[in-house]
């Protein structure tokens, strides 16, 4: 397969799954510019790694793996959000939607909660929210299924503490 054919195949596959990249960008970026930069960076890295993708895992699993890898690796330079004060989370508004609880506000509140998690926890939460099973999460993260369960429990506790605080 020549480079042009390979590129066509790659673009075709990415078009079908590009939501994954956008979700990872949304998870790890605060502003639009950062999001655009990360999106570009993930696409470049996906394309560079594509020749080594042999179909051992699902294309989407491979995409999650590369995307999260780039996001975590790249974030090192710009990671300031952990030190920034965040708004307290009002989960009541999420569980009891009122007139003020518009999707955008809910989304904002969810991101506020996510921002309080570590990079690894963010990755696990995102995969969980994407309905990935423990087996697939373990495969993407490189940890055991048992440890995925442990991490999920810890994340639950952490989020619970955030609400109680």
């Amino acid at each position, binding site marked *: 397969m020549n480079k042009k054919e390979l*590129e066509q195949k790659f*673009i075709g596959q*990415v*078009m079908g799954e*590009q*939501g994954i990249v*956008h*979700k990872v*960008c*949304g998870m790890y970026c605060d502003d639009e510019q950062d999001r655009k*930069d990360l*999106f*570009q*960076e993930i*696409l*470049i890295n*996906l*394309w*560079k790694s594509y020749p*080594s993708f042999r179909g*051992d895992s699902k294309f989407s699993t491979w995409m999650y*793996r590369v995307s999260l*890898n780039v996001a975590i*690796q*790249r*974030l*090192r*330079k710009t*990671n300031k959000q952990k030190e920034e004060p965040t708004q307290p989370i009002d*989960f009541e508004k*999420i*569980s009891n939607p009122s007139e003020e609880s518009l*999707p955008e506000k*809910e*989304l904002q509140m*969810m991101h506020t*909660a996510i921002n309080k998690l*570590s*990079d*690894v*926890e963010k*990755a696990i*939460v995102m995969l*969980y*929210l994407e309905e990935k099973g423990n087996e697939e999460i373990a*495969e*993407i*993260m*490189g*940890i*055991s299924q048992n*440890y995925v369960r*442990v991490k*999920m429990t810890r*994340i*639950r506790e952490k*989020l*619970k503490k*955030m*609400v109680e605080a």
Partner: protein
Amino acid sequence: MELEQMKTVWEKTTNHEVEGYIVSKEEIHRLIGKRSNTTISQIKRKIRNKVFMAGSIGLLLLAFASYLFIAEERVFEFFESFVDPASNLEVGTFYLIFGLLVCFISLFNAFAYRKILIIENRKSNLKSSIQNILAILQNAIRVKIYSDTLVVPGTVLALALIDLIRGIGIFPNVTVLLLFVLGAVVFATLSYYITTYGQNKRYGSQIRALKECLEELEDER
């Protein structure tokens, strides 16, 4: 429960949010043609440039040294102002030593580059990717520190060797020679610490954060 609430919000909002960001095939084609700016890509580019630059300069120096060795007439009178004009053999030796030193730096970087490619091509999940990135970063830092530290003492050593063989007067006596050697050692030590400091400042926080991530992934108790 909180995570389940989050799931409800995620399902309700994320797909809708993502729709606003979907790009065309043409845009993907345009984007993948750009240059990556991840730390690893930047390090790879720097090492590659160093291999190319040092390699070219080293080969030029070696070619010139070879030319001096085979030339029948004296072609370069660099040391004329000293005790007596230097022969082609002496000047050639000077260039040969410098050429070999620069080529060594180029080869050192080439091996580091090859190592990075091997590490990069390993099939990896997130945990081993982080391990690989850390290995690459630490390897690149070591290469930078040692190749920077080698230059000055290497140059002084070359000059000292020439002076020892030829007695051209760069070091009029042993005291001056020792002072130069001492200076070179001090410079190399300073260079080592300055480069180490610079590299730590540049990549230190990234390495610490990646180690934290790795510890979190390895903390399987």
